[in-house]
């Protein structure tokens, strides 16, 4: 009975954390001329199905290695796939000469630096971390994704 209570508590705690998880902001360089991206287009850019923006500008998707939990949340909200499947998908894409995976930055700070300095870069950061010369073009929120 004690074990059951502990399990229920853990589940409630996890559900609570999920419900309060911070939204993720998809950011681009202001000079790109892009003011809004759809979730589908961001999905295609980060999954290698689209290598340029509609304007013709070559896209450079950037993802932060840390925190890893947000990377998993990003792909869950974007394409509803778990991170291990995203990795195996990229092995398939890369080793069949089709596309290469997003550039991996160390953390949010490096994502913001790359996006601010590269016209075609598109990345994501926690909403509260948005700062500097970047433009938010899409916000991903668990409550909207479910």
């Amino acid at each position: 009975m004690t074990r059951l209570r502990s399990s229920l508590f853990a589940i409630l705690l996890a559900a609570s954390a999920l419900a309060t998880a911070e939204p993720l902001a998809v950011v681009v360089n202001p000079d790109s001329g892009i003011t809004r991206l759809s979730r589908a287009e961001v999905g295609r850019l980060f999954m290698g199905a689209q290598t340029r923006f509609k304007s013709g500008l070559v896209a450079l998707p950037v993802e932060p290695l840390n925190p890893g939990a947000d990377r998993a949340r990003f792909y869950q909200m974007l394409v509803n796939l778990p991170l291990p499947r995203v990795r195996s998908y990229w092995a398939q894409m890369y080793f069949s000469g089709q596309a290469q995976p997003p550039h991996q930055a160390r953390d949010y700070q490096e994502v913001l630096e790359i996006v601010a300095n590269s016209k075609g870069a598109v990345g994501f950061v926690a909403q509260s971390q948005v700062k500097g010369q970047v433009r938010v073009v899409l916000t991903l929120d668990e409550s909207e994704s479910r």
Partner: protein
Amino acid sequence: MRCKPVLFTILAAAGAVPGLAQDSSAGCQLGGFGTLGVAATTTNKVGYPRGTFQPSGATHRLDPETDSRLGLQLRLPLGESLFGTLQAVSQYQYDGTFKPAITWATLTWNPVSTFTVRAGRESFELYESGRNENVGYSYLWVRPPVELFSQSILTAIDGLDLTQTLDLGSEATLSFKAWGGRSVGMTPLRTQSQPMDFSGGHDIGGHASLAIGPWRGRVEVWQVQIPHDFPPPTGSVAQVLDGYGVALKDPGLAPSGSLFPLQGCIGRGYSAGVVYEEGPVQAEALFTRTYFDKYLLTPNQSGLLSLGYRLGKVMPYGMFAKSRSAPQKLPYLGMLPNLSDPDSRKVVAGITELVNGLNVNQYTYSAGVRWDFSDHADFKLQVDRVWSQGPPLVINLQPGFNGHLTVVSAVVDFVFGGGR
């Protein structure tokens, strides 16, 4: 990973050089993939190969050759819209060696977001999930089901492909691909010293695929050409066979009264498949049919159903695959073993094996589990319950084989460099 010595690459894959494998910045990149595995079956009356390109297969002893392989890939950006890919794979192949072979050597041009041109050598790709069957880490199973993928006699084509993608809105994408080129492939023939060379045939094909949210559907058509006849001495017995056919007024003979040579024989096929991937679910259904313009080669149809469900890092799965050819209609083949000359008998044995080997009748129930124990590696354990009529999907048939075998396989797949 930038171009660095191979040893450094392997160290990175092993985690000895943290961070190296994550470097995907622009520039020359070296990456790789591999599988270390063992397989064993419940019988020594037959061998269970990964594909028809292997000269022997797993038996009741632990066999590391069937599934183990190593690949290296170099990616070279040549401008904003152009890049080159070079890939070599070492695996157990037709000549019984692990001699590396070039599986990719392409230039890819991507002038606009929706259009891609690729030229050079690329692995033969017939089905969605077989896009690169050498990369075990990229798919759910230990190996793509042999009932569909093992039958491909071609390993690559030297040619050109064009892909056009259309954004239909509402998360829907439609794409078309057309390809053409010359085939590359060798298959061992167990009764002869020389392998059958399928290289040089003219092949064309294409597919349309539609992706809507978690659904992907694909319809594909293709035509391949068998470029050479059977190697001697089997090829030289063609006239004998044709003579039997003419004497018996076989209605299936071509107007020329010839079953052979196979040189120039055209094979055509189509496939239809659907994949559903959402959250923890990964499901796939595929049907394919092939037929040939030579009476000797009978039509074949194959299919698979696969379902996996992810529980964190672990993903149990099940699969059913079946392949069946139409019955062979050469009644006079049974008369051939009556030939008394030893050389003729050897040739007839070869012909009989070839003809019987073209008739596939096999199905497999599989259950397994994939464990993603690291960001760049997985462990898979799979049990296959197989029923087989005999070659070509199982080989080295011995008297006493009752058609049933169980295959147990355990593999570790890994990627390094560009594969994240």
